[in-house]
């Protein structure tokens, strides 16, 4: 089954890294095929950045998203640019603090940025919280696979913080 996941937010939130981690979890630890691509502008910070992952049980031919079924949106600008046109049968996870609009499709509000700031004291891990919520809300990859992929991808010394964020995300995603 082909899934097309779109991540969007502003540059610096780590939406590209989120997609890389999800792709890695699927391809290396989930026994699936995955292709990760992105659209980005000249800004290193700010702007609306978009990253996509295609996950499939079969080898992936067309590598870009054609009809996305899962959205992870972490900024209002990102919603307007990449989320507003989501088809009705899609599922969208939004950061409830940063995204003010709501789509026509099924939508799950995840207070990732709020929790990152208030519970973990580090806003930087909001993307990992979203990733955890995505995994339990959709079952795209296993919790173990995403955990291993997170540990592969985050800087040394930040493993505990990121695992806490991931588990927090798992809980937030499960409760939806």
């Amino acid at each position, binding site marked *: 089954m082909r899934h097309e996941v779109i991540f969007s937010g502003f540059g610096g939130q780590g939406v590209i890294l989120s997609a*890389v981690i999800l*792709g*890695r979890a699927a*391809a*290396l630890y989930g026994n699936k*095929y*995955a*292709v*990760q*691509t*992105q*659209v*980005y*502008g*000249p800004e290193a910070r700010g702007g609306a950045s978009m990253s996509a992952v295609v996950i499939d049980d079969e080898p*992936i*031919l*067309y*590598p*870009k998203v*054609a009809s996305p079924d899962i959205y992870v949106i972490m900024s209002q600008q990102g919603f307007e640019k990449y989320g507003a046109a989501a088809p009705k049968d899609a599922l969208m996870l939004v950061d409830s603090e940063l995204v003010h609009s709501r789509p026509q499709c099924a939508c799950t509000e995840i207070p990732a940025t709020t929790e990152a700031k208030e519970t973990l004291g580090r806003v930087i891990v909001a993307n990992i919280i979203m990733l955890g919520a995505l995994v339990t809300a959709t079952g795209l990859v296993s919790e173990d696979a995403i955990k291993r992929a997170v540990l592969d991808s985050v800087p040394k010394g930040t493993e505990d913080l990121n695992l806490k964020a991931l588990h927090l995300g798992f809980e937030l995603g499960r409760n939806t």
Partner: protein
Amino acid sequence: MQGNRACCEGALAAGCDFFGGYPITPSTEIAEMMALKLPKAGGTFIQMEDEIASMGAIIGASWTGARSMTATSGPGFSLMMENIGYAVMTETPCVVVNIQRGGPSTGQPTMSAQGDMMQCRFGPHGDVATIAVVPSTVQEMYELTAKAFNLADRFRVPTFVMSDETIGHMREKIVIPEKVDIVPRKPLLKGKLPFEADEDGVPGFAEFGRGHRVHVTGLTHDERGYPDTTDPEVHEKLVKRLYNKVESKRHEIADYDAVNTDAETVFITYGPCSRTVRQVLHDHPDECIGHLNLRIVWPFPEETLKIFANAKTFIVPELNLGQMVREIARHTTGEEVLSMPKIGGHIHTPAELYAAVEARK
């Protein structure tokens, strides 16, 4: 693994031991990765002051026997043309990676394109023949970069990896082979002049510091390497040899996939467009749609068109306003040749390409 990283890994596996480069989006990850990995592998990384200098440095390094490489994108590729011509004239093996972006000029730095396909063939002044490989997957990025080194050494020509932002920045799983075949350049044998070609049109390589006392010049030269810039016969003999040593082997070195060879409608693609066509074929298994995917576009393997004996239409989707389609049209004999240009940064969707098939029904 990211495409650009696969490019580095393929180069390192092929024994690349010198990289000279200049940062430019969307190729920069290649320079960054080489800066990290080459010194530990016993090689040399140097960031030059511009792309002209990068090209000069890799040619200089190549003459000491190094397997040398640079990576760039459109604007930098334009700057390299002068010394690419020099590499052709002096028969200097080297690999130039072009992660294409939208042009002309600085254009779209972060978006995908295939606008430099003719530049890599005809960019330098004068008559040249070079080799260009084009990957359509991250796996192929690894394999074709490694292969480019062997082709460069065998034919003693600059060899291009004409990839693009889509493949360069895409991440997918690859399988790294245990061993990559390395075919070293053939050395100059005693009694042979440094630019005296063997039967294959390629002279043995007179590596610097080995007592060959070779003079290397971009001027028209004789078999000793000495300039002779006014004798028409010397010039014609040299330039025809440089041209034919590559062009006469185009079928031998052709690298492609041909699917549904009895089809009447046939897509011809290279790079990321090939993946869209594969999707179309996958989504319409009951229809006989032909597909020719070229992994080597220059020298152009014109014989491959004849594989599709029933072809009535060749459809050529490209991320430009129609470049390779001209070469294809030049070699067809009565078939319709349909260009499907696309610029702006995104690749064609399967629906766009299938619409062209339906229109032919």
